[in-house]
């Protein structure tokens, strides 16, 4: 009788394993057992973990659930459901960077309700197999030759295998990459009309010690920076006035600041582009004054200006009195604003200013009318 019961248990055990593990792949079994074989669902599921699925006809699934679908008998996939509608579903492995190709909803066979780690289910399975198929007598104990020895040996072997399983088989391969300190460019700016160039950095795990080299480069022109200083994470560079003059004379507007910085760890070599926008001098007549402004970091040559002033008889529309005045040129210094008094002029005046800008001569004419 006891032998018969043992035989029934053995048959049921085999039937249980076959029907729910292999059978679940092609039969509509209520339960399905699957083992994970990759890192696609890491860290939710690790290779070797036993996944327990409940048939989708018993437990309905929704977006966010982990489901099992089978492409064929040999290929079943355990992934998370990202999107589902009446016809198709999209799944994704938690460790995968992108979604899987769409699948039909009919191919989803199980909804995952739980998992058992390899280190738990494998020893349990082995122990149950031994218990069912090869029962041992615990009464004999460690006094029997080689029982204690086998026990101790198995403990050490299991410790080795457990570590091997956890740290080698169940951990995804990682690239050995040292977390390097980083430096990136935060902003490039100019201040005080290009007289100061600001290069701002974003530093992580680094700090700037000093500037080893600072060059200003525009086509074939190369000039040393006249002055620079380090202000925390930013470098302030003052280009010499001659450099801008050279750019202006050569009709150049783009230049590069080449910096070699000494950091507490290593060196940074950077080239930073700047564009200078050359602007014509601003000439306006305001409050009986001719105002000339130079918005550039270089001097502008004013060749000269001429004023023709007259009074007009409103009845006859004849010019009664005319005054003409000419002045020689001058240099409008960088960012200089100069005012020329026009209070002495008659009721109507025309002002003509000639200047050189970017190697070309321009004439500006303005009118001043007095009430």
């Amino acid at each position: 009788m006891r032998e018969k019961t043992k035989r029934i248990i053995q048959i049921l055990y085999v039937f249980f394993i076959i029907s729910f593990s292999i059978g679940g792949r092609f039969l509509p079994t209520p339960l399905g057992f699957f083992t994970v074989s990759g890192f696609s669902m890491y860290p939710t599921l690790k290779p070797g973990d036993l996944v327990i699925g409940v048939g989708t006809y018993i437990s309905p699934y929704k977006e966010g659930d982990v489901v099992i679908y089978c492409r064929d008998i040999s290929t079943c996939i355990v992934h998370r459901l990202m999107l589902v509608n009446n016809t198709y579903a999209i799944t994704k492995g938690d460790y995968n960077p992108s979604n899987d190709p769409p699948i039909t909803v009919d191919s989803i066979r199980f909804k995952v309700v739980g998992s058992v780690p390899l280190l738990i289910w494998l020893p349990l399975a082995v122990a149950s197999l031994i218990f069912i198929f090869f029962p041992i007598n615990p009464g004999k104990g460690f006094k029997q030759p080689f029982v204690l020895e086998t026990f101790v040996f198995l403990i050490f072997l299991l410790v080795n295998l457990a570590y091997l399983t956890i740290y080698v088989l169940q951990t995804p391969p990682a690239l050995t990459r040292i977390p390097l300190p980083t430096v990136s460019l935060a902003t490039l700016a100019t201040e005080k009309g290009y007289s100061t160039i600001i290069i701002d950095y974003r530093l992580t795990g680094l700090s700037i010690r000093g500037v080893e080299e600072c060059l200003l480069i525009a086509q074939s022109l190369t000039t040393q920076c006249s002055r620079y200083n380090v202000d925390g994470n930013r470098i302030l560079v003052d280009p010499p006035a001659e450099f801008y003059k050279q750019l202006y004379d050569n009709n150049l507007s783009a230049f590069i600041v080449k910096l070699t910085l000494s950091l507490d760890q290593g060196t940074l070599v950077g080239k930073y582009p700047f564009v200078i926008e050359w602007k014509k001098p601003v000439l306006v007549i305001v409050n009986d004054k001719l105002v000339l402004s130079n918005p550039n970091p270089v001097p502008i040559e004013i060749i000269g200006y001429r004023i023709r002033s007259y009074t007009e008889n409103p009845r006859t529309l004849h010019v009664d009195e005319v005054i003409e005045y000419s002045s020689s040129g001058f240099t409008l210094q960088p960012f200089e604003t100069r005012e020329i008094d026009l209070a002495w002029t008659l009721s109507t005046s025309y002002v003509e200013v000639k200047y050189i800008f970017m190697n070309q001569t321009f004439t500006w004419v303005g009118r001043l009318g007095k009430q």
Partner: protein
Amino acid sequence: MASSKDNLLTYQLIAGCSAILYSSIVLLVLIMPLYYLEGAVKGFISFSFYQLKMGDTLIKLPELERAISLSIPITLNSLFLLLLGLNSVTYWIYRKHSPVLARLMFPTSMATVFSTTFFYMTHTVYILKVVESLTGEYVVTNSAGILILGEVILKSSPLADMMISPTPFLSLSILNAVLSTMWILRIYTKLSSQSIRNRDQK
């Protein structure tokens, strides 16, 4: 002619000394630095711990952490073996023979053969791979320009050169296992001959 007890005591001493020698060597190898790094990354790497610094920042590498975790089984194995070896020698000093020590030392010594294999796997698969990938020029290009952090030079200790070949350590572990096997077999032979003699007397 040496008595049976003297014979067993000699086995106990030899197996005990072998266990002490082997486990001490393994424990020393575990703590001694295998590789030194100089340059942009400074520090050392041993089997059971490592210290790598870039500037003042300590670097943690997952692969090395994993390698250190893999050295735990052999550490446990060697510590247990050392304890058994020390006990065996102490018992020998007091002229006492302990069959329980022999029964524990035999499986522990056999397990060290496996542990040593895992130990080598840790070295070749993880530590050596990580160390080789650490060397070279550290140059990073980004929006700020070219960041030249410098070169990392690897210097291996004489111990690491010795570790390249698994023969010495595996041979030692096998020798240790053979000696403890001889001891346990000697005990069981004696026990079986005693039981035969007892049966004959009855």
